[in-house]
């Protein structure tokens, strides 16, 4: 697959150019009011995907509060690793460079295999949404309910499609297996599109995926179970929360998009960081945000503001879960 730019992104390119530019800027100018130029946002996934849509919807409101444009740069590869490595390795920690990532699967990466940088050198400060994983079957599947699936899973090992092993939705179904004694064999189908296709065509018995992607698959699939609260009701076929259905106490298995920043940037430029946080919060209070999400065909129900603390807790939970399920996720 190939990709290209939709809007102007000057100079965020190799990061080298970006840092050269900031060094070339006279010191006096740098002391001027923040932000005095556009911000670069590193997105570790492909252009045109869910993160892209989400970013555009959110930043279209945030930019007015902050008074500067956000210029996205897409750095897909290695399940998001490439984007983080470039952000941490090449982007200047000056609060003009942010990362927009998914705290669920991308943080699970670190639990499975550590990156080259110290993961405490960046943190997420602005959670935009939370999107629970769910289990679903193809429209023609014989399974009518999650109970039937669990019953069948006790008789034989069921194959379960997932976009990749290290994903919150994968952990959700493994946890269900542990709780009920049903046997599930995770089959990574690389990517949401293929995971839906796998369930529809019967390559696998059923699939698990972030619910946002399942909603957009429309009536080609039927949702059976949500690994968290079903905030959208009918759009996910009124499927039950796993904790209610099986009397479990599983934390919500979420994809969660959030803005992150270098720790050094927040430490060295507390004023700039403060401005980012306050304008981020103000964006959530603006009713235009909801309209922007509806216009972009997003799922506004999933908008869910979170600050440094909530994000920190989320990351901590993810790392713990990753550690617990590491043997199953890595085959080690």
């Amino acid at each position: 697959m190939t990709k290209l730019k939709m809007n102007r992104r000057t100079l965020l390119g190799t990061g080298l150019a970006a840092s050269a530019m900031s060094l070339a800027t006279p010191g006096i100018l740098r002391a001027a009011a923040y932000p005095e130029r556009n911000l670069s946002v590193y997105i570790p996934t492909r252009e045109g995907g869910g993160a892209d849509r989400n970013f555009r919807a959110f930043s279209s409101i945030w930019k007015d509060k902050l008074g500067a444009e956000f210029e996205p740069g897409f750095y897909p590869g290695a399940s998001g690793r490439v984007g983080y490595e470039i952000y941490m390795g090449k982007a200047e920690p000056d609060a003009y460079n942010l990362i927009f990532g998914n705290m669920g699967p991308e943080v699970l990466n670190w639990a499975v295999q550590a990156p080259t940088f110290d993961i405490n050198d960046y943190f997420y400060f602005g959670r935009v949404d939370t999107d629970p994983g769910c289990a679903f079957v193809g429209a023609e599947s014989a399974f009518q309910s999650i109970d039937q699936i669990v019953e069948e899973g006790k008789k034989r090992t069921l194959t379960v499609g997932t976009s990749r092993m290290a994903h919150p939705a994968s952990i959700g179904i493994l946890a269900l297996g542990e709780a009920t004694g049903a046997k599930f064999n995770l089959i990574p189908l690389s990517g949401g599109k293929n995971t839906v296709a796998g369930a529809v065509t019967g390559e696998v018995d059923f699939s698990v995926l972030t619910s946002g992607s399942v909603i957009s698959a429309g009536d080609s699939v039927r949702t059976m179970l949500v690994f968290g609260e079903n905030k959208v009701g009918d759009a996910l076929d009124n499927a039950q929360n796993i904790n209610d259905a099986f009397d479990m106490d599983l934390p919500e298995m979420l994809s969660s998009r959030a803005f992150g920043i270098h720790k050094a940037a927040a430490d060295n430029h507390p004023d700039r960081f403060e401005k980012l946080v306050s304008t981020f919060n103000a964006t959530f209070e603006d009713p235009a945000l909801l309209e922007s999400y509806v216009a972009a065909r997003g799922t506004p129900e999933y908008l869910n503001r979170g600050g440094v603390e909530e994000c920190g807790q989320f990351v901590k939970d993810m790392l713990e879960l990753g550690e617990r399920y590491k043997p199953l996720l890595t085959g080690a």
Partner: protein
Amino acid sequence: MGDAAIISTVFLETIGYWWVIIPTIFLGLIVGGIPGFSAANTIIILMPLTLAMDLQMGLVFMVSLYCAARMGAGIPAILVNIPGTAGAAATPLDGYPMTKQGRGQQALAISFVASSLGGLLTTIIAIAAMPLLARVGFYMHSVEMIVVMLFGISLIASIAAQDMLKGLIAGFFGLMLGAIGTDVVYATPRGTMGFLELYDGVPLIPALVGLFAVSEAFIIIEKRVILTKKGQEAMENPSWAATFEGVRDALTRWTHICWTSVIGLIIGVIPGAGASIASFVAYQQSRTFSKTPEKYGTGHIEGLVAPESANNGVTSGTLVPLLVLGIPGGATAAIMLVVMQYHGVSFGPSLFQQDPKVGYGMFIAMAVSYFLMILTIIPLSRYMSRVTTVPTIYLAPMIISFTLVGAFVPREYMFDMYLALAFGVVGYIARRTGYHVAAILIGVILGPLLETYFLRALKKSEGDIMVLFSSTLGNILWVALVVSLVLPIVFERRRKKKEIVIQ
């Protein structure tokens, strides 16, 4: 309104958009011809424009761009040995030798006719047999796909026929390079030399342009132009006759166009499979059932017709699962899904009840585009083919810069430029020492796909290798594979016997 009435209404409306379709065809030809660009990323770039159009116009625009880009990818593949996308990787096998013989104009005309007719035919079949075709994906699971991949990979053996050991070394070296990247189940990095950029495997465009084009650029500077002596004479007097000759050559092989494009259609409707597989499989099948398999690779017309009609068959094929099941068959179909959803169209089993005009409209737009392409593009082959008369002292540096830039474009990592250069050096060494670059390339392209399906099947059966023979359809395909490997040998024996008898 009955289906026939809807089809005829939509047909007339689509014809009314000729003024959108014709410029889009030229845009598609250009983006298809630049390595690294494709219909999918062009639609993303032009997204603001696409979204601003009304539903039907946007649909006509995207579909004609898709068809034209597929056809455009064949142009540099034929003229300068640069396949613009993986789907065109089998096109230069016979297209480029034709160009060197001074038959570039004929080759382009053949490719255009084969593409358009193949596309047109498969579009009509798709409209007629849509519900049936959509079922193909329900039977072609990982086990069956392993065998389909092996059809394509067995081409290595055919290519290697002249020097079996060297050919196999090249093919397996390619498969090994294709195995770079994380394993598809547990994401363990393998053979990446520490480069994160290689975690997702060897990126195809840099490998493609490096092996074929960069290495070729270093070879062609030996001569003043890329044409052979005879080719230069043939190109001296450009005339429309050569275009007509190409059109005639293609039309007289209409049965060949039909069945190779149907191969493309069937592979296209399987979600996840794509044009690169289809064109290699079609080429391999075409060679297997040919009376003159030894001519393939030397500028044989069937060798050009097969991949070109097959990869355009894929184009209509990828729309079938999108419309009937709501699952896109390929990257471009996935982007179309996003745009259509933006307009409030929901895909899936209910589409033909709710929005039959959209469902039929996409195929009709495709048919109309292919028809208009026949009229607009074929006359251009005369002018395009002049590129081959440019002296190599200008052409070689242009090819190198053009392809290195193209290698960069899909992911925008400088790494990919260096990678294309490295593949260029490997390709050059291979050419100079008698190893087939096409064999390496088949390995690099199809190897990772084969492994993906193989591991998926093994993971499903929890490691039981007998899963490979667990399905009826799979077993039928295995038998067909063996037959298609043995048949050429039998033919060859029989022919030799005949020759001896005659002598």
